[in-house]
């Protein structure tokens, strides 16, 4: 019975361990980006900022609606006896006093103030949405960069692990030659091999650390506890078009530029608002009030003020204007200057975008060339290593010939995967520069 209990405990433990391992998921780039977008504080901040700007728009819209103030009060009061000429307060008798007043105002014509306010707020919301797009693009590029760097590091690590067989083979043969006191055995070869093996382990440790760091970064970005990377890293399929095409796309779609366009439109509305402030507001106003007390004598004369027994209603057409002309001139100047500043910033961004497109394309061109060279080098080094391995296996070359070839092979593989990662990241950066929204990777 006891043994059975132990077995069931062991089975349960094994299941737990296995389930834990099964939980480590292989993360595709699409999944990584999706999780990162959901998890990003930057995205959350941008969304709340848009929410605040939407509230501003709602407030601007409410400016055209009728507004009313309501005052209501109820209080105990001693009796008020007599009239306006001769009266007294009777503290021996107490009653109540109720009072209600409603004042309303309906804007009729504001010389464009309300519509300018609404326009500015509407463009403000657009700025918020483009800021979300900017945040999104930043998060996407960050994840893409980390992901490709991680895949590159993993590919190097896999290659190094794969190369362990060469080390073992060389070590085994050296040992055998030494044991058999073969004339081909050179004690210096043993030292050469030791250096090579140490370098190999050092490189493996470095690659492992790079993979771990990249995985940690992915975990933080995606908010997932346990992630694994798929094997293999291939260059993205990318066909170059003319630079003008990318510049045109960037000027059309780049969220930073779109945000500045919206901000300029909002500032233009602000300028209109400041200009309209020189004109009055035309409105209709109305007022109704009622006051009553059960312990105050009513005043018969219409000339006597009787707040305790009153009932009145009034309506009027009104005109309102702030005559602080100096302040208004200053406000208009400030709005105009801010508009000009934004227009200048937009021009600077346009110039910057052209430069960014040029740089991104040059980077891609360079990395693609390097990728080609790295591929050629890797292929040649592979043939070299295989050939030397065969010769070494059959005793026709020394340890140095083999290790030289193997070192070059792994170095070229390292360069190749680095080049692939750099190339892919550069392609993704170009996508960000031209404002291509992320729709998933192929």
């Amino acid at each position, binding site marked *: 019975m006891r043994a059975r209990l132990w077995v069931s405990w062991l089975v349960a433990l094994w299941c737990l361990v296995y389930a834990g391992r099964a939980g480590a998921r292989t993360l595709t780039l699409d999944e990584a980006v999706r999780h990162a977008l959901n998890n990003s504080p930057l995205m959350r901040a941008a969304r709340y900022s848009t929410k605040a700007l939407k509230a501003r728009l709602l407030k601007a819209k409410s400016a055209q609606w009728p507004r009313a103030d309501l005052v209501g009060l109820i209080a105990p009061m001693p009796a008020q006896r007599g009239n306006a000429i001769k009266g007294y307060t009777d503290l021996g008798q107490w009653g109540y006093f109720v009072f209600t007043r409603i004042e309303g105002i309906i804007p009729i014509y504001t010389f464009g103030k309300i519509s300018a306010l609404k326009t500015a707020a509407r463009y403000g919301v657009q700025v918020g949405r483009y800021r979300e797009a900017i945040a999104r693009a930043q998060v996407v590029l960050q994840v893409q960069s980390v992901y490709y760097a991680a895949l590159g590091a993993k590919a190097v690590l896999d290659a190094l692990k794969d190369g362990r067989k060469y080390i073992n083979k060389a070590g085994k043969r050296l040992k055998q030659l030494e044991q058999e006191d073969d004339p081909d055995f050179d004690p210096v070869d043993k030292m050469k091999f030791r250096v090579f093996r140490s370098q190999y382990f050092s490189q493996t440790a470095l690659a492992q650390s790079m993979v771990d760091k990249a995985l940690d970064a992915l975990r933080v970005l995606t908010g997932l506890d346990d992630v694994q990377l798929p094997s*293999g890293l291939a260059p993205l399929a990318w066909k170059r078009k003319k630079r003008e095409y990318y510049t045109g796309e960037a000027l059309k779609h780049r969220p930073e530029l779109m945000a500045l366009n919206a901000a300029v439109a909002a500032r233009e509305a602000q300028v209109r608002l400041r200009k309209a402030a020189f004109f009055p507001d035309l409105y209709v106003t109305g007022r109704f009030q009622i006051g009553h007390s059960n312990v105050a004598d009513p005043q018969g004369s219409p000339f006597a003020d009787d707040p305790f027994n009153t009932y009145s209603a009034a309506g009027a057409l009104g005109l309102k204007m702030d005559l602080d002309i100096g302040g208004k001139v200053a406000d208009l100047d400030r709005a105009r200057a801010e508009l000009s500043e934004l227009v200048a910033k937009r021009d600077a961004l346009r110039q910057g975008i052209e430069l960014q497109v040029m740089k991104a394309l040059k980077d891609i061109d360079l990395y693609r060339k390097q990728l080609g060279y790295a591929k050629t080098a890797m*292929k*040649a080094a*592979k*043939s*070299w290593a*295989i*050939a030397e391995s*065969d*010769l070494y*296996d*059959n*005793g*026709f*070359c020394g340890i140095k010939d083999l290790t030289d070839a193997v070192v070059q092979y792994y170095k070229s593989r390292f360069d190749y995967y680095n080049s692939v990662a750099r190339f892919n990241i550069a392609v993704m950066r170009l996508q960000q520069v031209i404002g291509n929204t992320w729709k998933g990777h192929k």
Partner: protein
Amino acid sequence: MNTRAWIAILLMVWIPGGLYAKTHKHATPMSVLKQKYLEMKKVIKKYPDQRVMRDHLRQIMETFIDYEQLSALTLPGTWDKLKKKQRKEFVDQFKQMIQRTYVNKFNANQKFSITYNGKVKYMKGGKAFVSTTIHSGRSEAQVDYSFHKKRGKWWAYDVIIDEISMMRKYRRQFVRIVRRSGFDSLLNKIRNLNIRRRKEAQQQEKADASKGAQSEP
């Protein structure tokens, strides 16, 4: 024996001979290679035992690699001076070495596919060249073959893996050794190596067998 019996015997000899001649007449380096790859694929699939599979692969290699020509080419200037017995032993030892090196690269149930790159290139002196690419998993290698015609049949005399010719690779080493220490030294080296590798293989087999016996209930 009457006339009918003679005719029957003649027909029996002539018809298969004629068919054989026709088959070889139409065989090209490409068809030879395709046939051999097909056989190799079958062997790799059929025999899960690594040793048995490799033995069969060796047999296939025997039927399309001309080891004699390969040996002659790796010893320029020396081959012609060798006696018949020396040549025979060199071919035998070199063949063992080559077969072991290349056959050991195959594993049981290993999946691979072949792409034939273009057509056969026929060259002067009855030689031909076929280029292929072998794909296995994520890796691939360009494997080219140099053929020549011998006794009416196409034989491969060099295998070029990723632009490295097997013949040239060994020729450089062999020439160096022959120049330094003579042909006998080279032959001894290869012979000793083959003996050593055979012993290792036998030891490995024994170790595998005892492992298998231990794991059995």
